[in-house]
């Protein structure tokens, strides 16, 4: 890895240099009912709109590489049959300006199943290979447990990564494309004092984490506690709404639906992201449902994230971004569910997330 230092005003220069491309970044979208700012990944044309100090985005950047609805192919139907035409739905590269380490790690995890295993999916590949990612160091929030998941820093999967050192940025340069972009602005070699400052900033960040998940032997414990009553407790709370999956940066399950065009001359095959918590997720034609109760579906979600993916790739599919806990209408949080499965004790008199 190559490291550089840039003075803060230079970042605007870098943005302007890159602005010939489509830039997606964190922007402020509104205010929550608690008065906190809400952020989202949106196309940015003005550097002033870019909020690199954002807490987190309510939704991940998933819609740019795993859109909730996507056309897989279209058919033209004629007298003697039909023809299929496939489009991967990407027409220009995207620059992601300001992704946190958790979201970059989420992409690396998705790569494992969508790019590097058998039958890689071209719809994802085409978008992923056309992402230029600038990571930015974050400010841990009360719901963040990425440090427990080992995803609080990113080692790869980005082009450059910025850490705010006060009046300057410490820049990790991962790709040649990033190196070339940096040639357009003033940069310098980091000195010993920059290294010291960087380590101090990271140490300060690490002290800010409050939420934790004990992942010791978690895959094994989930297997042992498959019949635990605790699942029923959480299942009874779960509304089976699928919100957790829609805000999850690593949920990739989907369903496919086809429709006939109104002129009867064509048809469309569409994919829409799904959630394993939705009631018909495992229902087969004829009506047999392999997971009819909400607790079996909720359990399955934890199994896939923390056990199945572990079995296949030696790591968990959860990056600890905490979005699902924040978005859950039933206030089910990952740290609480896992703690209860580990201890076998259902939470008593819980007051909801963050003591609310």
């Amino acid at each position, binding site marked *: 890895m190559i490291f550089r230092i840039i003075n803060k005003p230079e970042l605007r220069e870098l943005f302007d240099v*890159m602005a010939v*491309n489509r830039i997606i970044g964190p922007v402020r979208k509104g205010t929550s009912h608690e008065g906190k700012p809400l952020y989202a990944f949106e196309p940015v044309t003005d550097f002033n709109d870019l909020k690199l100090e954002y807490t987190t985005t309510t939704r991940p950047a998933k819609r740019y590489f795993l859109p909730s609805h996507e056309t*897989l192919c279209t058919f033209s139907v004629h007298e003697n049959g039909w023809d299929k035409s496939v489009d991967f739905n990407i027409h220009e590269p995207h620059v992601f300006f300001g992704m946190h380490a958790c979201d970059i790690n989420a992409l690396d995890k998705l790569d494992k199943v969508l790019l590097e295993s058998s*039958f890689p999916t071209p719809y994802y590949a085409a978008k992923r290979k056309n992402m230029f990612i600038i990571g930015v160091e974050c400010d841990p929030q009360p719901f963040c447990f990425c440090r427990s998941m080992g995803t609080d820093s990113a080692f790869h999967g980005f082009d450059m990564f910025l850490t705010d050192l006060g009046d300057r940025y410490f820049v990790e340069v991962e790709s040649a494309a990033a190196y070339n972009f940096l040639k357009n602005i003033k940069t310098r070699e980091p000195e010993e004092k920059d290294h010291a400052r960087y380590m101090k900033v990271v140490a300060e960040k690490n002290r800010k984490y409050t939420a934790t998940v004990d992942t010791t032997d978690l895959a094994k414990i989930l297997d042992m506690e498959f019949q635990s009553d605790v699942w029923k407790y959480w299942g009874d709370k779960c509304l089976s709404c699928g919100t957790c999956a829609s805000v999850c940066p690593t949920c990739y399950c989907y369903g496919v639906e086809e429709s006939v065009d109104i002129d009867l001359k064509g048809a469309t*095959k569409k994919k829409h992201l799904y959630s394993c918590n939705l009631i018909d*997720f495992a229902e087969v034609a004829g009506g047999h449902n392999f997971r009819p109760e909400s607790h079996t579906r909720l359990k399955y979600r934890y*199994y896939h994230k923390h056990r*199945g993916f572990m079995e296949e790739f030696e790591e968990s599919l959860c990056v600890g971004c905490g979005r699902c806990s924040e978005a859950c209408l039933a206030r089910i949080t990952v740290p609480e569910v896992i703690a209860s499965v580990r201890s076998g004790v259902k939470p008593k008199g819980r007051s909801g997330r963050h003591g609310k």
Partner: protein
Amino acid sequence: MENKLPLVDVLKGVPGYQRKSDLGSFEYSYKAEITNVYPLTANEKLYQIQIVDPEMRRRFTFRPGQFVMLEVPGVGEAPFSISSSPIRHGDIELCIRNVGNLTNFLSRVQRGVQVGITGPFGTSFPLEEMMGQNIFLIAGGLGIAPLRSPVLSVLENRSRYANVDIIYGARQPSELLFTYQYDMWRKFDISLDIIVEKPDKQWNGPVGLTTDILREKVATPDSSLSKNTYAIVCGPPVMFKFVCNMLTEAGIPMQKMFVSLERRMHCGRGKCCRCNVGSTYTCLKGPVFDYWSVMNLKEAI
């Protein structure tokens, strides 16, 4: 404009052709024609489906137990076990019950319709490994559909297997599938026992469950079962446990017992997660599992 990032074409520079890693063929389906529709019962029909391109048809190979995704544009796509012999290549037969959206549409089509076929996908029954041994094939209801391919394969290589026993159970005689082939199977030295739960007036065969026949077959303790016998089981979820337990007690090792599981699938390629059992993809690690693997899968049967 030197800072303009180039659009990367993911299809460029992929070396060689490998279906399992080829991004370009992910959404490719063979154009195939339904050449014949043969009604088997009130709800099930046998579809003879031929890949249109003769070269593609010849190159299409599969192993018994594997499945294909069948697609009707605008209607849907679903997985179906191949019911024909592998020596017929891309001239396949699918036994389909009219039960859902796509199959309801299929139940109303006539021969000549063009459909899309993708695959084959999934694991298969290890018929080479079974050579020289006895085979129990136990099917319940529609479970005969994925079993017909190994049955036909065994028939075509009859000298390579010892005793072959098919035990097939259905709810009632009118639901029995492939009735026109029973005589042929028996003539080719395959023992075929058929049992129904609810007999009608014409029925003069045994009445009960597949396990009733199986119990008789494995009643006499035979220590050689563990060494010389394989079993293939396919049927409704409730059947697996009872049949596999009985076979285990009879001494057949778990890794010589194979089941074919049914799950919902939207892709067949290990991506949509709909078929996951516990967290194992039925489409990649299955649909054929040995019983040991099934025992290790949570909520499999």
